[in-house]
């Protein structure tokens, strides 16, 4: 699989996008549930220092109808938005500690693709 295209300042994030960026919450959750503490750390260390720059770029685009490279960055940012608490708060665990089985939560709206 070729790495997804990304806007010029972020092309080095392409391997991370290939692994993490998916259009639906369920798909992103599957990836997150199988991630290790090292996976969360690698994503965090690559994304966190550039988060402000990424959000600045995304803020120039509407919530739907982005060009393909921006949309790929957007999906990577969505994956990071959902993954960052696992590094910051849950000690690298792929499950929320002391929690209900996340697989039993159902997205009621059919989990539309972003």
């Amino acid at each position: 699989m070729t790495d997804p295209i990304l806007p010029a300042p972020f092309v080095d994030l392409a391997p991370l996008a290939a692994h993490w960026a998916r259009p639906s919450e369920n798909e992103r959750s599957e990836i997150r549930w199988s991630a290790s503490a090292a996976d969360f750390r690698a994503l965090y260390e690559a994304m966190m220092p550039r988060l402000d720059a990424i959000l600045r770029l995304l803020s120039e685009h509407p919530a739907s109808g982005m060009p393909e490279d921006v949309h790929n960055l957007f999906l990577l940012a969505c994956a990071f938005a959902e993954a960052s608490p696992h590094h910051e708060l849950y000690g690298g665990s792929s499950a929320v500690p002391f929690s209900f089985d996340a697989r039993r939560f159902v997205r009621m709206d059919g989990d539309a693709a972003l």
Partner: protein
Amino acid sequence: MTTTCTAEDLRHINRSVDDIREELGVDPVSVRAISDPAIYELEREKIFSKTWLKVATIWELPHAGDYKVKELPVADASVLIVRGKDGRIRAFHNVCTHRGNKVVPSSGFETFGRSRANVVTCRFHGWVFSTDGPLRSVPMKEKFGKLDTACLGLREIHCDSWEGFVFIHFDPEPAQTLTDYLGDFGRLFGGYPYAESTTAFRYSTVLNCNWKVAHYAFSEGYHVPTIHAGSLPGFKGVEHGDFKLMGPHASSTIYGAGMDTAPSTLAFASMLSTTERHRPRPDQLPPAINPERRADFQFELPNLFPNFIIHLASGCGYPGMSFFTHQFWPLDHGRTLWEGINYFRPAQNAAEQVAQQHVNALHRNAWLEDTATMEDTFAGIMSGSIDAMQLMDQEFLIRHAARTLDTYLAA
């Protein structure tokens, strides 16, 4: 209909802790209403058939012909909620008047769709009904020896809306209108622009517990520092106060100085909290909620009897979150469908949308912590080893709901 009251108008609903102790008592509350399957059968008859139940929002069904099918095992009903050509939202039994087949096929507990021609057609024999109810056509109609089509429209269920929330009532002759049933609750929560918050993140799960175990777990702030130590670390100064009683309904306020915010949350939150659309809006709260407009307001925590909670935050609690709701639908005595929905105003750009994903994920994860206790709690109660719940002041919503339940069951 919007009826906004001032804090002074609603002064009679306010209760101090002493008032609550005096009015609702301080004794342990029996768990029998949770453990006894016979009580559940009574609840179906005396509560879920006798109260107004929220089943939809008007913004879920924005266009004529938009419909939602809601499966409600507690009433043995499949309910079709549909916006007619005239713009009105009605509710019907999703049952063909020919021989009883389901008119609109559904999967799971909720199914959305749109009828472009403003009719729904039974897939069994092709009977066609208008979205406002009447039977419009019957294939081979002349082959029926007798068929009074004028009386064979979809069977209507009483339906009304308040502030964009759509309620139904299964009783053919409800004892109260929705406005009267909501009473002071409608006046306390009325006036907030709920319908602006059309971006919804909706979750459900089936829990192996009685519906009241799930409901009660979301009805107090006492659990926050313990159960949410993971997802709400260092939550400081939780103050659960401003107790209010309103007939079968009740409410209270969670104030708090917030939590230790992680770096990513800080970055995402700033995308929302710096915009006019998503920033904390204590000024938009109805006047009797957080009447002093305290800056540490997090959200209002009510119970709309029997099974609905609107946590009104107005952007003050979780960043950018307008409000969130919980609903608890019994499937049988020991099984419950929980529905949790986070509502935001629509994102104006892709960065705001990512930020909402983050806030939603944090809150979804907190719900995973909440739901973790429910099946264990029910199993514990069903073991017979405890007879009663010990309830502290901040658990007064539970005490009040249990008392209201008893009142309905005794009626």
